[in-house]
């Protein structure tokens, strides 16, 4: 167990993501957020552990379920909420939306909406690191639903063949939208494929930030020191539906309740309470509430992007008509 202040810090980071998304869900219901909104609630320990295990200049690429990873890497709640509200102060200037958070300053190189299509990109940023010898590692996340698509296979084939410093992480939240794993994968264990690629692998059920740091840390170290890719499957659970339009009728409330008892955020909070940190937890919660309320107000008050932004974000220089 690391020192209590570190644990309290992890708790606060997870709580920021949790409360950010609960407020995003509320804003969505109020019509302030359009399109799709895929919540990460239940999976926060993975994002927080990842950010702690990476160097600041390492690259991270993920799916459309991207709020948690952006916030954990350093995107402010203000920039994240403003993006959801479609405002020019958002992390992608209000042009990306929930599925396309980008924060180049924090090496969060995007959330992508085509399942599996981002995995070759991650092999590509790792390719660039190897080409330049800059010592950076790329970590890329995908869901169990992406495990079957062609780009997933091609990215891993090439990363293994060319020995690229990339860590592939399957965040297995048990459901490909509304379809359970048992109906999408003939072999439930995604990491069994690693042998075919000649890649080391790891598989575990996510219990805590510390565990994520330790397990991901090994693969990150391997990528950095020997330029070897790895495949990790981390079993997790999303408490909400696939997106805001999904009531989650394909699973029982007992199943959801069972996983909520194992929720790493809940478990860590209980642990820190028992360790006598109730006051500090209360103070952390209050500061998180302020941060999220401020983010919502900031997003509400921000201006929308104007049409003058469209041409210069499509081409550099004159528009290619």
């Amino acid at each position: 167990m690391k020192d209590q202040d570190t644990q309290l810090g992890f708790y606060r980071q997870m709580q920021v993501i949790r409360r950010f998304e609960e407020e995003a869900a509320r804003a969505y219901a109020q019509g302030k957020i359009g399109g799709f909104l895929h919540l990460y609630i239940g999976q926060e320990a993975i994002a927080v552990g990842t950010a702690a295990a990476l160097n600041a200049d390492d690259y991270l690429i993920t799916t459309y379920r991207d709020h948690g990873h952006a916030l954990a890497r350093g995107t402010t709640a203000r920039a994240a909420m403003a993006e959801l509200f479609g405002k020019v102060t958002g992390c992608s200037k209000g042009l990306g939306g929930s599925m396309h958070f980008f924060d180049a300053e924090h090496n969060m190189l995007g959330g992508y909406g085509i399942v599996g299509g981002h995995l070759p990109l991650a092999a590509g940023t790792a390719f660039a690191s190897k080409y330049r010898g800059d010592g950076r590692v790329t970590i890329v996340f995908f869901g169990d639903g992406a495990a079957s698509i062609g780009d997933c296979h091609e990215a891993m084939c090439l990363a293994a063949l060319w020995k690229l410093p990339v860590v592939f992480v399957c965040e297995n939240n048990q459901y490909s939208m509304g379809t359970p794993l048992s109906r999408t994968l003939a072999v439930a264990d995604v990491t069994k494929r690693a042998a075919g690629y000649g890649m080391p692998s790891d598989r575990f059920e996510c219990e805590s930030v510390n565990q994520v740091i330790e397990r991901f840390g090994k693969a990150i170290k391997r990528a950095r020191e020997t330029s070897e890719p790895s495949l990790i499957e981390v079993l997790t659970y999303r408490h909400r539906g696939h997106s805001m339009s999904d009531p989650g009728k394909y699973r029982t409330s007992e199943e959801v309740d069972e996983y909520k008892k194992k929720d790493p955020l809940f478990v860590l909070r209980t642990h820190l309470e028992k360790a006598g940190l109730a006051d500090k937890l209360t103070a952390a919660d209050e500061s998180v509430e302020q941060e999220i309320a401020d983010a919502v107000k900031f997003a509400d008050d921000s201006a929308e992007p104007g049409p003058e932004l469209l041409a210069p974000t499509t081409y550099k220089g004159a528009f290619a008509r």
Partner: protein
Amino acid sequence: MTAMKSVRFREAIRMGMVEEMERDDRVFIVGEEVGHYQGAYKVTEGMLDKFGPKRVIDAPITESGFTGISIGAAMVGLRPIVEYMTWNFSAVAFDQILNNAAKIRQMSGGQLHVPIVLRAPNASAKQVGSQHSHAMEHFYTHVPGLKVVAPSTCADAKGLIKSAIRDDDPVLYMESETLYNLKGDVPEDPEFLVPLGKANVVREGGDVTIISWSRLVHISLQAAEQLAKEGIDAEVIDVRSLRPLDEETLVASVTKTHRAVVAYEGWPYGGVGAEIVDRIQRLAFDDLDAPIERVTTLDYPMPYNAKLEQFVIPNVERIVGAAKRVAYRSA
């Protein structure tokens, strides 16, 4: 006077790539058979020896994978050249080109961009059949965020590949297998560039404008020679750059000739030719003396049979016929 060198079309492309790789070590090339095999069409011959396996990279048959990897590398500052064995095979990488290469600049609010060149032979070759004969420019020019060029001469081949490599956005560079052996003079000057978005009047004339690109420029010039014998003086424009499109040059010519034929490979439904017709009718309506005609690949998948293939792709006879019709001269 700049020094010229007589080379074949494939060597002109190579000269451009080699010069840019010497100029900028962020440039590399990846594709199937580009290295040890020396290129499926020998465009990259000798490049592995010159630059080594770090910068001339043989890829397995994974078009989507190595396109995506190159886009990722470009996002963080490298300048990849991707060679497809033919543009037909880019279809399996279409998602990478459409959803990543073209859109990352906008999705990221301008934080990231993708300086990448995708290149390959395009359109019909000789009896390569239904799946290997597509004119893919019509699919890609539709997409904002992409640029598309298709040179017809050796000098343009060199000058446009260099401009494409230096461009900060994705450029799709379309060659023709049938042009690879074409000989022509190219400037040796390493700063010789042909800008994107500039068409070229390759034959001046006053009676009708024939607009084309890539291989069809040569067919259009043959048609112009035949038309000249029949007293019709055709102007031939090589569009060169399909997006951005040089509508000024097209309109200036039609303003002079009052008649136009667009001749190209690709099916008649929509496409670059229809776009050109739309621009001309909007921008030069009062100058037109006849409806614009298009001479395209006929509206069928490409047949293998040699005579049927020739029947389906645009030829001199069909271009001459169209030119006569818009000039109201009986065939």
